[in-house]
C-alpha cells in the first residue's frame, strides 16, 4: 500500500479536503460502486451489507421504480416491466437486437434510431434504464461519503464501440453524474492489481463474464498503464458453460430437448452445479421432469472440465491475437489477472495457467476488481495526488471510410493508442464533381456491408475540376474516451466540413465478435472480393470516360474503328455483370486499346481549340 500513501508536499491528503470521486462498474448482470476512502479503494455496501446490485430495473404502478434484488425477484411475474441485462441494448437500434429480442420478454418499439422498450411507465430507452441503476449507485455513494461526489469514472467493455460508449456517458449524465472518463474494464482491473501489488512489467487481463470474453495486454511501469492490445469474443461466456452442462443432462437422462420451461429448469440446475463445483469435487443433480419420473445423476469436477473444454478452448484464439498485436510471446508476460465471475471455475484456471505458462493472479475478488480500479482512477482525475498514475488506452476496432466500390479504407487501425489522429487524402471520381459524401465505418473487414456504419456527412462546394484533381483531406480525431470527430477539407480551396460522430445506436456485441472473427476467417475471400470491386470500379470508370468522349467527338473515328470500339465496349459491359475480376480487367484494357485513336485525336483537337481560345482572349484584351 506504500505507493498509495505518497503525497506531494503541501498536497497532504487531509480527509476533509479530499475531493470525492467514485468508480462505477456498470455490468450486464450486476453493478457496483467504489471509492478511495482513507487511501484505500473500497466497494460500498448497502444496509444489508451487499455490494453487488443486480442490474435489473422494474417499473411499478404510480411512477415508482425498483432496482436491484426486489426487481430481480419480480422478473418472472412481471416480465414486460422488468428490464434485465439492459447493457446488451446500449447504443443499439431496433434492427440490431432482433436476434436477441426473440428470447426476451420485452415489448420493443419498432422505430428507427435508438431502441425503446414499452413499459407501464411509458417507452424507455436503454439509456434511461441504465440511468436508474446509476441513480441507485449514486445515492449509495452519497450516503456512504456524506456528500455528493465531484465526478465518476464509469467502466465499459474494452470492445465497446462509439455508440455504446456514447450511450453509457449519456446514461451517467441522466443520473446526474459528472463523467470524468470512460475506462475499459480490463484496464481498470490492471490498475487495481498494479497499484495494490506495486507490480511492474507485462500483464494479460483475462476477463470472462456471463456472456462476453475480453483479453487485454498491458505494460505497467512507474505508474503508467499502457494498453498494448485488446481482443475479444463477445459471444462467449459463463452462460456457455451452463449450456454445455444442460446438453449433458439431456443426453444422460435420455429425455428429449423438451419444452422451454424444462430447458430453463435444466439451465438453472446446470448453473448451480457449475458454482458448486468450484468448492466441491462432485455434485449430485436431481432431475424431476414430472412427479414420479425422476433421475439422480452425479457430475464430477473432471467430467465438468471435459464438458466445458470446447468453451475454454474458444478463448485461446483471441489470446493469441492480442499477443501478436502486442508483438509479444507468452514467455514475455509477467502475470495474468483473472476478472469476471466465470473465472472462478477451476478448469478455467488450469487452462489459463497452461496457456500462459504461469498460475493466474486471483487475489482480488474478480467481482470487485473493476470497480476498485475505476475508483482509483477517479480519485486521480479529480486531483487527489497520484500525479504518477497515467492510463494509455487503445482504439478497440479499426476506423475507416467508404471508398468506391463499397470498399472500406482503414484510417486508424485497431489497437492504436488514443488520443490519436490521422489524415488521409481522397480525390474526386468524376469530372466536375462538386460534392463528396463521407461515410465513416468501424470494423475489421474490407467491405462496407461487413462493417458498422457510424456516420455519414457531405462535403459540398468543391470547385468543379477534372476527376482526380481535387484533394480532399479527411482527418479523424479520437479523444481519450475513444470518441471520434471527423473533419474534411478540400486542400486547394479550403472548403471544410466537420462532424462529431454521435451515432444513435452502435454495434451489437456479437456483431463485433463476428466481424472480428470473420475478418480472420475470410482474409482470403476479402482479398478476392476487394480485387473484384476494384476491377469493377476501374471498368466503370473506363466506360464512363468513353461515353463522355464519344458524346462530343464520335465523329473523329471512322466506321471500322467505331465498330471495333463498340465490340470492345459491349464485351466489357458483359464482363461487368459477371464476377470475374481478371476478365473485367482484360476487357477494360481492350476498350482502352481500341479507344486509343479517339484519345489521340481528341487531344489534338483540344490543343487546337486551346490555341484558338487563347487568341480570341488576346483579341478581347
Amino acid at each position, binding site marked *: 500500500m506504500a505507493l498509495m500513501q505518497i503525497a506531494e508536499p503541501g498536497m497532504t491528503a487531509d480527509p476533509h479536503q479530499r475531493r470525492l470521486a467514485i468508480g462505477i462498474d456498470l455490468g450486464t448482470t450486476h453493478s457496483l460502486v467504489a471509492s478511495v476512502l482513507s487511501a484505500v479503494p473500497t466497494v460500498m455496501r448497502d444496509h444489508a451489507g451487499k455490494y453487488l446490485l443486480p442490474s435489473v430495473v422494474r417499473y411499478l404502478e404510480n411512477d415508482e421504480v425498483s432496482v436491484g434484488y426486489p426487481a430481480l425477484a419480480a422478473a418472472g411475474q412481471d416480465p414486460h416491466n422488468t428490464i434485465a441485462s439492459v447493457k446488451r441494448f446500449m447504443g443499439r437500434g431496433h434492427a440490431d437486437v432482433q436476434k436477441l429480442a426473440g428470447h426476451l420478454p420485452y415489448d420493443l418499439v419498432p422505430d428507427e434510431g435508438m431502441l425503446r422498450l414499452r413499459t407501464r411507465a411509458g417507452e424507455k430507452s436503454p439509456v434511461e434504464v441504465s440511468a436508474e441503476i446509476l441513480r441507485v449507485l449514486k445515492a449509495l455513494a452519497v450516503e456512504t461519503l456524506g456528500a455528493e461526489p465531484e465526478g465518476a469514472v464509469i467502466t465499459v467493455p474494452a470492445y465497446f464501440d462509439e455508440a455504446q460508449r456514447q450511450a453509457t456517458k449519456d446514461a451517467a449524465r441522466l443520473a446526474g453524474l459528472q463523467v470524468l472518463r470512460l475506462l475499459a474494464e480490463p484496464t481498470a482491473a490492471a490498475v487495481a492489481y498494479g497499484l495494490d501489488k506495486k507490480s511492474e512489467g507485462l500483464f494479460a487481463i483475462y476477463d470472462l463474464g456471463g456472456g462476453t470474453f475480453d483479453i487485454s495486454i498491458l505494460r505497467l511501469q512507474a505508474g*503508467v498503464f499502457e494498453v498494448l492490445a485488446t481482443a475479444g469474443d463477445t459471444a462467449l461466456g459463463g452462460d456457455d458453460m451452463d449450456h454445455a452442462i444442460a446438453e449433458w443432462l439431456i443426453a444422460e437422462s435420455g429425455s428429449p430437448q423438451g419444452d422451454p420451461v424444462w430447458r430453463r429448469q435444466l439451465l438453472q440446475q446446470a448453473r448451480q452445479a457449475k458454482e458448486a463445483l468450484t468448492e466441491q469435487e462432485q455434485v449430485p443433480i436431481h432431475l424431476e421432469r414430472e412427479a414420479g419420473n425422476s433421475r439422480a445423476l452425479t457430475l464430477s469436477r473432471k467430467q465438468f472440465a471435459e464438458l466445458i473444454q470446447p468453451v475454454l478452448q474458444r478463448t485461446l484464439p483471441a489470446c*493469441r491475437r492480442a499477443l501478436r498485436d502486442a508483438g509479444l510471446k507468452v514467455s514475455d508476460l509477467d502475470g495474468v489477472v483473472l476478472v469476471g465471475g466465470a473465472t472462478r471455475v477451476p478448469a478455467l484456471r488450469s487452462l489459463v495457467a497452461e496457456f500462459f505458462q504461469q498460475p493466474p493472479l486471483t487475489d482480488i475478488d474478480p467481482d470487485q476488481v473493476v470497480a476498485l480500479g475505476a475508483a482509483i482512477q477517479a480519485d486521480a482525475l479529480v486531483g487527489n495526488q497520484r500525479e*504518477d498514475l*497515467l492510463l*494509455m488506452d487503445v482504439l478497440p476496432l479499426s476506423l475507416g471510410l467508404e471508398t468506391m466500390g463499397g470498399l472500406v479504407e482503414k484510417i486508424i487501425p485497431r489497437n492504436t*493508442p488514443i488520443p490519436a*489522429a490521422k489524415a488521409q487524402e481522397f480525390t474526386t471520381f468524376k469530372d466536375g464533381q462538386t460534392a463528396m459524401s463521407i461515410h465513416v465505418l468501424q470494423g475489421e473487414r474490407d467491405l462496407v456491408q461487413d462493417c458498422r456504419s457510424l456516420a455519414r456527412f457531405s462535403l459540398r462546394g468543391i470547385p468543379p475540376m477534372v476527376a482526380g484533381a481535387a484533394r480532399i483531406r479527411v482527418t479523424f*480525431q479520437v*479523444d481519450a474516451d475513444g470518441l471520434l470527430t471527423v473533419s474534411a477539407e478540400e486542400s486547394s480551396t479550403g472548403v471544410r466540413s466537420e462532424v462529431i460522430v454521435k451515432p444513435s445506436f452502435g454495434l451489437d456485441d456479437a456483431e463485433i465478435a463476428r466481424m472480428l472473427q470473420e475478418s*480472420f476467417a475470410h482474409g482470403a475471400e476479402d482479398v478476392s472480393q476487394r480485387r473484384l470491386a476494384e476491377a469493377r470500379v476501374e471498368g466503370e470508370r473506363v466506360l464512363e470516360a468513353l461515353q463522355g468522349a464519344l458524346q462530343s467527338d464520335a465523329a473523329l473515328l471512322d466506321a471500322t474503328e467505331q465498330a471495333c470500339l463498340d465490340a470492345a465496349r459491349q464485351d466489357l459491359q458483359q464482363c461487368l455483370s459477371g464476377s470475374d475480376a481478371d476478365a473485367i480487367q482484360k476487357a477494360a484494357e481492350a476498350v482502352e486499346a481500341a479507344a486509343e485513336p479517339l484519345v489521340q485525336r481528341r487531344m489534338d483537337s483540344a490543343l487546337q481549340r486551346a490555341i484558338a481560345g487563347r487568341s480570341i482572349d488576346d483579341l478581347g484584351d
Partner: protein
Amino acid sequence: MADSCIQCGAELGVPPAFCHICGTIQPFRPELSLFAVVGLPASFDLDAQSLRERVLDLQKMLHPDRFAHADATKRRYSLEWSTRLNEALAILRDPLKRADYLLRAQGVDALGEQVKVADPALLMSQMMYRERLEDLLAAKDLQGLEALRTEVTAAGDKAIEKLGIFLKTLPCSQSAAAGAVLRELQFLDKLEDEIDRGEESLQNL
C-alpha cells in the same frame, strides 16, 4: 531564439509544450517535427526504450487526463500534444517508419506507389521466401515457420544496420541506395507479419 511561456514569459524547454516555471500548457505547434515534439535531435540512431520512457514522461504532463478539469482551450492543447506524442512514438520507435520519415524530410519518397522496385536480386529473394512460406503453411510445419522467422528477423536486423550507415549523416547523400534497403526492410516486415498470421491460424486449427 528561445520560445517563451504564454503565461509567465519564462523561457521554455524542449519540447516547448509545458512551462516548467508556472506549469502552464502551451499552444500546440503543428510545425514541429516528430523529433522536436519528443525533444530529440533528428537521427536514425535512437534507442526505442529511452524514446518510450521519454514519451510517457511527457504524456504524464500533457495527457488529457491531466486536464480533466481545465478550460476548453487547455483541454484542446492537451489533446493535440498528446495525440502528436502518440504519433511520434509509433513512427520513431519503428526503424522502417523512422527511416522513411527521415528520407521524406529531405523529399525522398522511397515507399511511394510510383517507385517501381527494379532490383532483380530483391525480387528473386522475395519470391523464394514466399514459396517457402507457402510450403511450410501447407505442410503445417510450425518448427519450419519458427526457423524461417529467425532467418527473416536476422535479414531485417541486417537491413536496419545498413540503414544506420546510410543515415549516419543527415541529409542522406545516398538516398537511392537507402531507399532500396528501406523497400527490402518493408518486404521483410510484411513477411514477418504473414509468418505470425500463418502461425496463429495453424495454432487455432
